[in-house]
Every structure is written in C-alpha cells, then in structure tokens.
C-alpha cells in the first residue's frame, strides 16, 4: 500500500514463490510417496509369498523326513506306510510307522475277547513263532520280555505298543504298562476295549513302535502320534494335501492300504497347496516332492 513496505515487487514475488514451491513440493512428494507406497506393497506381497513358501517347505520337509524313515525295523508284511485317499478334491491322510525297539514279542496264546494280558512266551512247547523261553541275563524275565521291560522303565513306566495280525491285517495301539514274569504276559494298561481278536496261528505279534499320522483339519496340517488324543498342529494355511504312490513295477496308486506291501514302493509323491492372503488378493502356491522310503532296501 504505502511506499514504506517497499519493495512491493519483492512481496508479490514471495507469494508466487510460496505457491510455486508448494506445488513443486506437492508434486514431488506425491510422486515419491506413491513410489514408496507401491514399493512397500510389493515388499509385503513378497513377504506373504515367502512366508507361505516357508510354511509349505517346512511342512513338506517334516512329512518327507518321516516318510524316508518309515518302516525302520519293520518287516514287509507290516503296514509301515498308509495313504488314505480322500478322493477328488479332498485331502489325503498319510500314516507312517517305525519300530522303536528291535525286539518284537510274539503272541503265544490266542487273544480273544476282553482281558488285559497278552501272553508273549510260554513254558510249554512253544507254538510257531514263539521261541522257547531263555533268560540269558538272569533278570527273571525271558530275554525278549526283559528288553521290553527295560525300554518301558526307561520310557517312564508306560509305552505305546501295537499288536498286529499279519493275516487279518488288523492291529491296534495299547498302553503297555506292566509285565508278569511268571505268566509270561504283558499288560494292557488302558481301559479301552479291544478292537479285534489276535491269533497265534497267524503269527500275530506286538511291537513298540511310533506311528505318525498327518492329516488336514480345516487348513491346519495336524500330526497325531501313536493314535493318542493329543493332536499337534504342524503348519497352518494348507488347503490341500495329496499323496501318490509309485510302485517299483511302474504302476501308480492314489491310496496305499494295509493290504499293500510297502517293500514294493518306489516313491511317494506328496503335494501341498497353501493359501495365503495379501490385502484383498489370495495367494495360492503348490509345492510337491517325491521321497523314497529307504527301509524298502532293508527288505
């Protein structure tokens, strides 16, 4: 207004300056911010993908390791590996078993109906499969029962044992909690009724083994050990698990049951499909691997 505020041109210039600088700043800030935001978006998508990959990889590694070890110390007529086919679009279940103790107890008296005792040795003429009683180490137990007793005591007093009839191919888990040197029997400690009868003539026997069963519950891969009610969550975000069995004769099966001989396996292909979420986008990845159960070579 007045000449006191001269130079007036300088004042006008400063306003334009402010506007220009603000608009330039706005433009550059907008550009850099959008760049930063999109970078972060890509980074997050990558992180989600990596995380999903890692989940699939670790789940597959865990299952593959168990499949490789399956059948340890087990004979060919024992179902060391089971693949329960879920059908099209339904996840499969994978069961692997391996014996923890070399000593296998034979069934020496038919086990029919209830009764907590399993007779694993006999003082009279032993039936086929039952070896005569010897107590080499003098601990008061037949040597094979002595091995079991030592294993049981080392395991805290109760072990999971598995009785199996190779002819009917029936088997079940039981809590092995005690043994009786005089009667040559081992005791079932749980109160669960027997699911099947077991016969001496079929060469039924009892194992101390570990069973690991993998299945999906919703989108969580779960592990059940030795048929106990305790369920372990392994990995989440798994949508599907499919297993295919390749046999040494070149044929392929979607399922592998107790009647199939695991010694004829060439490889087992396991595929996992994982689903992740990144913002609104669904992320689907599939990972598969083929493993060869090494103990096939021990048959």
């Amino acid at each position: 207004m007045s000449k006191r505020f001269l130079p007036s041109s300088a004042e006008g210039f400063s306003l334009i300056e402010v506007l220009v600088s603000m608009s330039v700043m706005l433009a550059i800030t907008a550009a850099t911010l959008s760049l930063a935001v999109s970078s972060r978006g890509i980074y997050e998508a990558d992180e989600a993908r990596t995380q999903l990959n890692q989940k699939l990889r670790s789940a597959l590694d865990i299952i593959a390791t168990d499949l490789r070890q399956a059948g340890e110390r087990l004979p060919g007529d024992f179902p060391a590996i089971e693949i329960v086919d879920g059908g099209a679009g339904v996840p499969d279940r994978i069961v692997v078993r391996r014996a923890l103790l070399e000593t296998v107890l034979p069934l020496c008296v038919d086990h029919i109906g209830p009764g907590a005792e399993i007779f694993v040795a006999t003082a009279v003429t032993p039936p086929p499969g039952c070896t005569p009683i010897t107590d080499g180490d003098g601990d008061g137990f037949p040597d094979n029962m002595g091995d079991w007793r030592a294993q049981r005591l080392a395991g805290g007093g109760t072990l999971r044992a598995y009785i199996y009839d190779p002819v009917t191919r029936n088997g079940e888990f039981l809590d092995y909690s005690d043994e009786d040197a005089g009667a040559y029997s081992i005791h079932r400690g749980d109160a669960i009724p027997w699911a099947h009868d077991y016969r001496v003539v079929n060469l039924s026997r009892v194992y101390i083994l570990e069973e690991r069963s993998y299945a999906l519950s919703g989108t969580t891969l779960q592990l059940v050990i030795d048929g106990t009610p305790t369920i372990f969550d392994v990995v989440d975000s798994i949508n599907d698990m499919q297993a295919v069995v390749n046999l040494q004769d070149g044929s392929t099966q979607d399922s592998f049951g107790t009647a199939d001989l695991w010694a004829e396996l060439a490889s087992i292909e396991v595929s996992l499909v994982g689903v992740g979420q990144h913002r609104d986008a669904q992320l689907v990845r599939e990972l598969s691997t083929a493993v060869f159960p090494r103990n096939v070579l021990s048959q």
Partner: protein
Amino acid sequence: MSARSESGSTLVETIVALFLLGLALTGILPAFSTILQTNTRCETRSNAVAAAQQVLDALRIEDPESLPMSGASAPQLLTVGGDEYEVITRFCVDAALCSPTRRQIVVEVQRSGSKVFDVETVFAQLR
C-alpha cells in the same frame, strides 16, 4: 525486510527438504529391491536343493553297481514350486571316488541355463 528474507528462505528450505527426501529415498528404494531379489534367489535356491534331493532320493533305489561309471544323464526337468529346473546327474567325475561297487554322483541343478546349486555324494551298497 523481514518478509523478504522469510519468503526467500521458503524456496531454499523446500529445495533442501526435497533434496534430503530424495537422498533418503534413493537409499531406501534400492534396499527394497535388494530384499526382493534376495528373497527370490533364496526361493530359487531352496527349490533347487529340493530338486537335487528328489533326484538323489530316486537314485537310492538303484543298485550302485548298475549305475554308469562315467558320463552324465540327460537333463531331467523338474517343476518345484511352480518353477522349472533342469537337473543333470554326472557319474564318477572324480574317478578315484569310484570303484565297481561305488559310484560318485554329482547333481547339478540349473535354472534357465545357469547353475543354481550342485551337490555331490558317493553311493555304495552295504547290504
């Protein structure tokens, strides 16, 4: 006078601020892309390891004596995690490690022509 000096500093301030912002972003943005590259490399490599493991696993069923004493197998195409890998198996690269009952096996995994991973072992029959 004071108004003049304040308005003058706005432009300088803005330029300095933008310069600093640019400097910070040029530092951060490449770091993002490095992370992406590292993740991708990591994934490729772990897939390659899985492919090699699968090929070695399949060889286990063979009697080592029936495996070749020299040369390489035809490239095997394996799809792991959606990507395709070429696996070449070489036998007895180091002849000293081979005998009639023993085979040295070198497995090389390639992705689009370049080597990603290689591993070697010796198989022998203990039965």
